[in-house]
């Protein structure tokens, strides 16, 4: 699985949405939170994971990379 947001920890700062080089995130305007919108395009670079101020994003390798 690519990036996964733990919404309990997410403060909606938008860094993941702002920085993802593959534009994997979209912004849910209603709830004012990021959503993983294009997960199959995830590069697994970990930028969202390392830049998230609350470590609210986890990232793991999918089966197809084994």
């Amino acid at each position, binding site marked *: 699985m690519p990036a996964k947001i733990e919404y309990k920890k997410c403060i909606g700062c938008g860094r993941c949405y702002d920085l993802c080089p593959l534009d994997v995130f*979209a912004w849910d305007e209603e709830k004012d939170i990021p959503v993983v919108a294009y997960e199959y395009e995830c*590069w697994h670079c970990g930028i969202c994971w*390392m830049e998230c101020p609350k470590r609210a994003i986890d*990232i793991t390798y*999918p089966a197809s990379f084994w």
Partner: protein
Amino acid sequence: MALEKIADRIVETDVLVVGGGIAGCPAAAKAAEHGLKVTLAEKAKTDRSGSAAEGIDHYGGAFPRGMTPKEWQGYIDSFSPGFAYGAAPWADPTRFYRQYANGMWAVEELEKLGVTMRWTDGERRPCDCHHEGPFLRVHWQNVKPEMAAGVRKRGVNVLERTMVVDLLTNNGVVTGATAIDTRTGEFIVIKSKAVVIATAACSRVINPETPLPWKYKFNYHWCPSSVSGDGWAMAYRAGAELSSMEQAERGGRFRDDKVMSFGNHGNEGIPAKRLTWDGEETIGRPGFRSRRFAEIQRQGRDEPRYISLEHLPDDYQKRVEVAFVDERLVSFKIAEDRGFNPRTHWYETMDNRVNQLHVEPGIYLDADFMSSLPGLYAVGDCMAGNHDVANAAASGFLVGDSIHEFVNKASEPVIDEARVESLKQISLAPLGVKDGTEPMELESAVRYICDRYVGVARAEGRLREGLRRLGSLKREFLPQLVAKNPHYLMRALEVRNVMDIAELHIQACLERKETRMAHTRLDYPEADPSLDDMLLFQRLENGKSVIEFRKRAPMALPDDHKEER
């Protein structure tokens, strides 16, 4: 129709830089320093984009300052004897020497831009690399945020999430570009007196590891957003010349990528062992020995290779870990999740598969980094004959430092509105398609054609069949490309570029009827002496593709020349 009615937004600038990476940021910052109005269009977000998005642990190609062309050639021979990997035969030698000779000048310029080049003790740390010659080890996890801040500070107008689609020309001179905002879908026209392409090379014509027919098909080592061949394709479509498109790099298909990053041990100068799967040691970096691998592929022995650090003492292991922090922090997390211990586990690569079009192929440039299209410059990985960080930074700074000479003489750009209108219709077409083909499906089909019919060991019949299939795929499915929103429009436009590059690649493979460097023909297993020093050029002329061999330019500088910067 008036331009204001066609475009959602019009941007006017002196210089447009396409791509905000290790070459684009220096080019933009330096040009702005000379008082020019500079616009930088970045497909992602400059703070974390491009090949250096996650950071880099090395500044490769840091040759000593003030070396002469003769000394430079000596250096290249010393780490790549008789082969000159990425060296002069594939580029204008004068330009090639200039980018190497200014690598250390670029270090000082980077420091002025706010990029950290020194270690905590205040020193720069030179390091000897096994495959790239002299370089500096750098703590560059944050090189991109630092560069992006530097560029903004110098007053560059940065357009984030903006994909440049096509270049605009008038009377054979570049006058700007069309672009889309990948978040809002706005169609943007950028009027510019000069354009600097600073995109990457192209991997996406080739499958990554693992090419399963399912999802997550962006498993490349380098940033997949950067390596879609945008810069090459837009330059070609506008009439600029590309060269050496038959050459392809091997050895970079890493199955265990981000578990143990490939570069880290090599870039730390650590003697890792390269093994076959029964533990037999192989020597050197076999990916570059084209003929041997063509033979392996012909025999169907497409075997993985392994990199092992298990024989090394603890202090080496610590150094590798520091390099992980600098380049790919996520490696620690993924290794831990997978139960992969870099100290004892071997790291798997598929060395004998084509990995990307890189190093030799690219936009052909003269000694001043200008392409065959006046006003169009290129810097960094999209140049023919480039592969490392110092070349990228140096080329960027060099162009940024001199482009005012061209801009100040250039006339006001005149935009052909009818042309813009037709480009707009082509670019936005996927938004209007219903029940069409999704970009990733079409892109996977292109990659599979390149895998099946081109590969490492090439031959006439297979290449012709590949070209035929690619042609019919393009005719039938390109008009059916569907984009549900602006994000997918970006992917759809990338596929168009990927298709153009794949076509140029196969045509070039067919044209070079000999075996030379990274191009192996099973039906022409020897080098043809009449093609020594002959580069293969491709360009679009009056809507027709032209392909021809021409002798590369000679070295214009005397043996004892010294760069003054």
